[in-house]
């Protein structure tokens, strides 16, 4: 069976993975990026809106343009970086220290790497409710992919469940595509996303119902509506109930980190609610308890793409340094400074709390503790 080998393997070609690849290559390392989708860029390729954050992380630039910028940077390193598309890393086998990977359904092979950066991103979280299996119930991210990547209109009238940034932004983009937004329901007593995104859809007359959630979907073969209900402080449905006419229900209740490969590599994991799931403990260089594995981006905790890019830079820098490539002194501190400035504000404070739980000073100390 075919076997590829590389110095740095980057699993996932999204915001974090591409940044990690660029950084490691800039220090001189040979990098292989493995991306399961048909083209690299991850979630960036469907972000048609302009990013916030800081200038260093391309604030003011539209997400899909940021993917192009990162790919241009990677291309400037010529042969040091190769990208495999349509290829999924399907497992890590500790005893052999080897990965298996599959390209489409045509080819299955092994990969050997000196250092591995796991930038596998996240998956959409779903919630259980009656009739949630009827066609027409989607993850909001999936709907965004359908519209912005494939140009497919997912429905005519939507109920959006969740008023975080994804729910708000996708609601607006649905409207731009001509879909009516019947309402946005949010279980929390307040809007989770940025005010500017909420204001945009409120100005268009879309109700955002706080302390509300979906109770059941309606329909036989496809969605014809939904029943929503008011919630109490313990998030229990207490009514009043309302029927919403819609043919599309979008679930935007958050994401969970994708961490299977880190578990298989034996990395110490921890469930951290602030980071939205089970994530790997790491040091300041994003190195996990397995010295050959690094975590970066949403796989290490759900956060915005701008932070994922900085974490990718850090992981790439540390992996290259661990391989003996000279890296610029003070760069790690500079990147941490950028993370700190991105993690200002209320949402950032929550992330910082989560990071405090998983950050270790140095792994040797932990091993003896």
């Amino acid at each position, binding site marked *: 069976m075919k076997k590829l080998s590389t110095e740095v393997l980057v699993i996932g070609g999204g915001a974090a993975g591409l940044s990690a690849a660029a950084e490691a290559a800039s220090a001189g390392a040979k990098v292989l990026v493995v991306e399961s989708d048909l083209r690299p860029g991850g979630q960036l390729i469907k972000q048609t809106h302009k990013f916030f954050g800081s200038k260093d992380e391309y604030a003011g630039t539209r997400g899909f343009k940021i993917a192009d910028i990162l790919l241009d940077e990677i291309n400037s390193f010529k042969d040091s970086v190769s990208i495999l598309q349509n290829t999924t*890393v*399907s497992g890590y086998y500790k005893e052999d220290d080897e990965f298996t990977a599959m390209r489409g359904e045509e080819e299955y092979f092994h990969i050997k790497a000196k250092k591995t950066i796991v930038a596998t991103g996240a998956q959409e979280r779903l919630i259980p409710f009656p009739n949630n299996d009827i066609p027409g119930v989607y993850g909001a991210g999936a709907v965004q992919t359908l519209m912005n990547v494939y140009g497919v209109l997912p429905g005519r009238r939507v109920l959006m469940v969740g008023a975080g940034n994804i729910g708000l932004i996708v609601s607006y983009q649905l409207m731009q595509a001509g879909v009516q937004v019947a309402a946005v329901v949010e279980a929390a007593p307040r809007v989770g996303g940025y005010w500017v995104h909420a204001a945009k859809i409120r100005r268009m007359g879309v109700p955002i119902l706080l302390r509300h959630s979906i109770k059941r979907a309606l329909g036989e073969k496809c969605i014809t509506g939904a029943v929503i209900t008011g919630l109490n402080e313990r998030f229990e449905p207490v009514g009043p109930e309302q029927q919403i006419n819609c043919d599309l229900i979008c679930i935007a209740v958050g994401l969970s980190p994708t961490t299977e490969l880190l578990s298989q590599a034996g990395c110490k994991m921890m469930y951290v609610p602030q980071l939205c799931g089970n994530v790997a403990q790491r040091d300041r260089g994003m190195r996990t308890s397995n010295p050959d594995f690094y975590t970066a981006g949403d796989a290490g905790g759900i956060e915005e793409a701008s932070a994922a890019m900085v974490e990718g830079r850090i992981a790439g820098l540390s992996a290259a340094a661990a391989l003996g490539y000279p890296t610029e002194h003070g760069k790690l501190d500079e990147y941490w400074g950028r993370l700190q400035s991105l993690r200002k504000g209320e949402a950032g404070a929550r992330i910082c709390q989560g990071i405090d739980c998983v950050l270790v000073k140095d792994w040797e100390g932990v091993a003896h503790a």
Partner: protein
Amino acid sequence: MSTSPETKEKIYVCRCEEITLEEIDEWIDRGYDTVDELKRVLRVGMGPCQGRGCQDIIMREIAKKTGKPITEVAPMRVRPPVKPVKIGLLADGGEK
């Protein structure tokens, strides 16, 4: 969002294996209160998505029913492959 007791509608938690919330609750009540045990008795998380859709919901349900904080509910053990691989591809030595 759990159903009110008067409704008998099915709520699918694991879509791949078509396992409902009711079944999961029933087995948690019988003492199968870890994701791994539920996986063994119900096959939850063993379909094409390998638990990506259901694990989180199951962990929350275990936390809710046992009163344990979610931080103490162990996630399922994940073995390779993390995505389905066709047996024919392996039989052909990895090339079609």
